[in-house]
């Protein structure tokens, strides 16, 4: 085998933040090389450098021993680097054939020699055993087939190195097997593949070599069989148990929410839930660990009535929910700090004061006659109190929420949700993008709520946060609960394995 690509000391800095730091990596011809890492480990940044979307801050890239600079995606194509993104870049309203020849540099002038192109594509498909129907519209073919179209598109443009970004995420088991067959064939033809995944089973099955990234750095490249799943997971997660700032609680017996065999889009591994049964007790923080996109969003939305499960039942405070409607959930004491602050949590073009009273404009406190006349003064003075109590730093409470920093926006949501006096608090990624001070404040508030007897469900892609906060930890993988662990001295090894599906 010969070396196809070598990168040396690649770093990519955004402001003060290193997304990649001093990464070295070689890709041989005809190998399947896996990049393993958590969310935010720097995989995507590195790939974006390889396909010319980002320029590295430092470092060199060599292709077949010659140094290259990849300044644009089209240059990457010319160098024989093709990428299949996790979200396909296909034009739905066009046929498979049209998608493949779209943007073909050889098609000069106004006319395309369709017959010749078609012949070429058919030959290529035949060589790799692809079964694609060239004249179907993208909308008419399955996800697995769309993926083959993407791969074919990259091959048609002469890719020698193929980057597959979480290619199995959207596929069914059978489709995954089909993909692996294709990958083996490509390998046999001498093509190289960079395979990005965090599903241990697949990684162990298909990879020739595995490089593990953690926090932007290469923490090791291993040959197939050198490490078992546990060893890889330990490298990938790389955590030592540190003392939590917070005292962990044993819940008392009362439950605030019970999910009984709940399923939602259960055949989809991505963004679905499959037979989830769990309880949230009063006075505990239940942490949901797992890689993003394994059903966390759906779990939070079902628990707050935004979406309805397809199977199973949910009880809040021992009464079974009949209608999944956010208003009903709010009335029965559910509060929600949603994952997307600006989209789901706040009406950003309204003022801080307006957002603080959002759900309560009809109450006696803020209006006369059930909302017939808003009490502006009461709203203002309440908002001023909240800004004080929750440390919302602003010029004025009449300022648009949009103009606040992320941390202060989160405090507005937190103030609104905490002040509703909830029994169940569903919190998703509460400290994402927040600075240390704001993070600490948000976490303190969650613990304070727990100590008041609120049942808290914490969803976070930040494993440290889960370990730090949770009284009990559940692991979600492909929509299933993979295990339940105590938050006191949690078995990190086991949890990290569960997060990768083993």
């Amino acid at each position, binding site marked *: 085998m010969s070396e196809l690509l070598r990168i040396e000391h690649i770093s990519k800095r955004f402001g003060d933040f290193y997304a990649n730091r001093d990464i070295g990596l070689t890709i041989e011809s005809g190998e399947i090389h896996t990049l393993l890492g958590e969310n935010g480990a720097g995989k995507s940044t590195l790939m974006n450098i390889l396909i010319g979307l980002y320029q590295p801050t430092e470092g060199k890239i060599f292709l077949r021993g010659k140094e290259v600079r990849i300044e644009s995606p089209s240059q990457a194509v010319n160098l024989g680097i093709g990428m299949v993104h996790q979200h396909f870049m296909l034009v739905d309203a066009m046929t498979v054939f049209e998608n493949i020849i779209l943007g073909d540099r050889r098609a000069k002038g106004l006319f395309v020699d369709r017959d010749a192109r078609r012949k070429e594509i058919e030959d290529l498909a035949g060589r790799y055993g692809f079964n694609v129907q060239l004249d179907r519209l993208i909308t008419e073919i399955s996800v697995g087939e769309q993926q083959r179209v993407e791969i074919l598109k990259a091959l048609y443009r002469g890719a020698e190195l193929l980057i597959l970004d979480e290619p199995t995420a959207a596929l069914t088991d059978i489709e995954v097997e089909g993909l692996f067959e294709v990958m083996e064939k490509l390998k046999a033809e001498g093509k190289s593949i960079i395979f990005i995944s965090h599903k241990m089973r697949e990684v162990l099955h298909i990879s020739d070599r595995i490089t593990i990234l953690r926090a932007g750095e290469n923490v090791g490249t291993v040959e197939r069989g050198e490490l078992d799943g546990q060893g890889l997971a330990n490298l990938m997660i790389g955590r030592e148990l540190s003392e939590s700032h917070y005292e962990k609680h044993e819940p008392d017996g009362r439950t605030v929410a019970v999910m009984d065999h709940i399923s939602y889009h259960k055949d989809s591994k991505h963004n679905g839930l499959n037979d989830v049964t769990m309880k949230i007790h009063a006075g505990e923080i239940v942490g949901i660990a797992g890689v993003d996109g394994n059903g966390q969003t759906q779990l939070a939305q079902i628990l707050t009535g935004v979406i309805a499960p397809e199977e199973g039942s949910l009880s809040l405070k021992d009464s079974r929910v009949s209608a999944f409607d956010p208003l009903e959930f709010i009335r029965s004491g559910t509060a929600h700090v949603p994952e997307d602050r600006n989209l789901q949590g706040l*009406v950003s073009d309204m003022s801080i004061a307006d957002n603080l009273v959002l759900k309560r404009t009809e109450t006696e406190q803020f209006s006369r006659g059930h909302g017939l006349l*808003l009490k502006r003064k009461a709203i203002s003075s309440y908002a001023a109190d909240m800004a004080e109590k929750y440390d919302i730093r602003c010029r004025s409470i009449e300022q648009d929420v949009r103009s606040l920093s992320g941390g202060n926006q989160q405090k507005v949501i937190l103030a609104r949700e905490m002040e509703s006096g909830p029994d169940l608090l569903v919190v998703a990624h509460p400290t994402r993008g927040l600075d240390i001070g704001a993070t600490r404040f948000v976490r303190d508030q969650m613990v304070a709520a727990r100590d008041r007897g609120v049942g808290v469900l914490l969803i976070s892609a930040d494993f440290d946060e889960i370990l730090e906060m949770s009284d009990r930890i559940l692991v979600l993988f492909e929509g299933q609960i993979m295990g339940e662990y105590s938050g006191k001295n949690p078995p990190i090894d086991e949890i990290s394995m569960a997060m990768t599906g083993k």
Partner: protein
Amino acid sequence: MKKGNGSLAGVIVPVLSILLALLIGAVIMACLGANPATAMKSLVVGAFGSKPNIGTTLTKATPLIFTSLCACFAYKCGVFNLGGEGQFIIGSIAAIYVTLTTGITGVPAMILALIAGAVAGGFWGFIPGILKITRGQNEMIISIMFNYIATLLMGVVYTNWLREGSVPQTQAVPKESQLPRVITGMRFTWGFVIAVILGIVLYYFLYRTSGGFKLRAVGINPTAARFNGFPVRRYILASFIVSGAIAGLGGSAELLGTQFRLINGFASGYGFDGVAMALIGQLNPIATIFVALFFAALRAGATTMQAATGVPTSVSDIIQALVIVFTVAGMALTKLPEFTAFLQRRAHRREKEVNNA
């Protein structure tokens, strides 16, 4: 209510747009060989120079206020009702049936006709609304298409069902059922008063009640509204119905107060005029009333201008169009990141200066 740069730009941009449009209008007048100062003066005299002239301006403003409030209300809830014209026409059809066929006359007929107009307009708004929330259909397309249906239906009414003799028009609303004038010697009727009161009521609703608060929240961010327990779809449907009812009420008021009969060209253009005026008025119902008055003044004064100085009335149309173009462009400008950054830099500098002083 919002304070700060957002609403300041909301006042400055339309005012500057109007001044700029008038300036270009003056240049055009000069190019046509007229003295711009004289022509402008005759425009103003034509609109406000005498009691009858003011009356004419207010009369012309009345339907525009209704259709612009119609557009404004739906926009506030984040949906685009481009069907104001159709709803206006349906309202006037309902009104003509009430006054001509029920045998009721006088004040009861007026009240009944106004209510019937509002109900019919509301129904015409309900259809695109319900299609939007249950089937996800594009409300703009459907409401525009319903304009054509309404216009053609009106055609059937004045050429067939309620045709008066050989002329393709309906009979006139009987004298005793016509909306009375508010002040003798001025043409405008109680329809104008209703329009202004409606604007004030809408302002109160939008900015002083919980329902209006929620409606605005739905308009700004329907996802957050849903997460916070607002019945988003119900608000969207309701805003369409109310928006249609406003236009329908306008249609019946126009019929009872000004036109008296349905005829080819009735209400033509009012719907889209309303949309433009609502935008210039920054979707504020009170501001919208003033914008409608301004446009009505340009229209009322144009005839006098043409008679006095020979400048054609179409110059007035050009000015109106320029106001719309400049306002829309101006608002787009203030939303550019470069522009907001510039404002912020200036604000920071000023803050510093204040601190140093």
